[in-house]
């Protein structure tokens, strides 16, 4: 019977060629990697991108620094694979992020009118994100859709931390401009 092993132990063993140990990491990170690949532009080819990334990650384990978190390191490879793919594909239209067409029984409670308004607003926001320049879209995907910190985002996108910060705030400002700024104004409006 096997025990569950920590990432660090699994990596150490995988480095010595233990494919069972690497299998634990694959199982543990597949969903996260898949979501990242999909949202960073791999679209329907996300599974292939993730498979490729896991194979490359295994071959490059010797470059993994002990003590570093595995997730961002892996996602950097995933992001890179996704980038290569979209470069070769050159079709962006198909990659647009979208909300599910119908939310089934998600939020049963609540006022239907509020919900309709909120849904419309979210749809606008998604459209606005889709319309952003590539890099700004990527940084928002990492920060808010993949829930990565600024430092992790810098690692995953292979950018300096300063670029992460500046592109995030530029992207947020653009979204602010695109969305109706009805509320949230500190100056009391009549």
């Amino acid at each position: 019977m096997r025990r569950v092993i920590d990432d660090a132990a699994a990596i150490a063993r995988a480095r010595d060629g233990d494919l069972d140990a690497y299998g634990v990491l694959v199982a543990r990170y597949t969903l996260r990697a898949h979501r990242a690949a999909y949202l960073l532009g791999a679209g329907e080819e996300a599974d292939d991108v993730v498979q490729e990334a896991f194979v490359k990650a295994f071959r490059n384990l010797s470059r993994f620094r002990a003590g570093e978190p595995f997730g961002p390191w892996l996602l950097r490879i995933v992001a890179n694979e996704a980038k290569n793919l979209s470069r070769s594909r050159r079709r962006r239209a198909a990659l647009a992020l979208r909300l599910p067409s119908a939310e089934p029984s998600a939020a049963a409670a609540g006022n239907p009118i509020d919900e309709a308004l909120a849904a419309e607003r979210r749809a606008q926001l998604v459209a606005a994100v889709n319309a952003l320049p590539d890099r700004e879209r990527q940084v928002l995907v990492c920060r808010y859709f993949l829930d990565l910190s600024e430092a992790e985002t810098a690692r995953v996108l292979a950018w300096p931390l300063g670029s992460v910060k500046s592109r995030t705030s530029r992207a947020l400002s653009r979204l602010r401009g695109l969305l109706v700024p009805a509320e949230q104004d500190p100056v009391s409006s009549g």
Partner: protein
Amino acid sequence: MADRTGWQGAVESELRAVGRELAVPPASDLTAAVRQRLEGQTAGRDMPTVGAGALRRQLRWRTALVVVVALLAVLIAAPQGRAVIIHVLRFAGVELGQGPGPVPSPRSSASLPGERRMSLEQARRQVSFPILVPAALGRPGEVVVSDGGRVVSVIYRRAPYGLVRIDEFAGHLDQVYFRKFVPLSNAAKVEVNGLEGLWIKGPHELVYITRNGYSATASARLTTGNTLIWGTSQVALRLEGDLSKTAALAIASSAH
């Protein structure tokens, strides 16, 4: 006062909310495929090839939840002896593994990182997911926000159940929040409000996993009673207490 950070925070939290709803197609289980490719290059060992394609097609996530019930069924059907079977199962941000876990602290002093007690209303303002409260239990006795808003614990002391604890987190985001060490024969698939849930009988070792994937040692503890794990498209929950399955399901389906 609330100038730049005000609107920025508002856009950020809307983005997070949208992120939870984005349509992402189901991921395939790649363990076998990756292994096959790596074995091809490591060469030498003759391994039976696992039907990766079949497994791949079998796995479908019907909701945004991280649900690996198909695998669970496979594991329950063939608990021992399968060589390459994944010994890690993930369900709504909770990872289950067989075998003994970390040694839990003997007393119930285990805690999550950065616990802060506050009112339900305050907590709602501090986390990026909706906090569900079961009507069957009424107002929570205690609300604790941990690890910078990553987990909310809603705690009750209510006859006839005694201490009941609900941990809520954005488990559908494909991150692991808790790791449990459970003989898989103690886990069973259930249905909560039409979505899949997992019922785990009996106490087991539980440890909180930080956002970097490390176990938070101070959080390791033995759970009490039984546990139910389920989720909606926006939040994952684990309910723990001295509850029968019927009572747990009734509590879960009254959560909104």
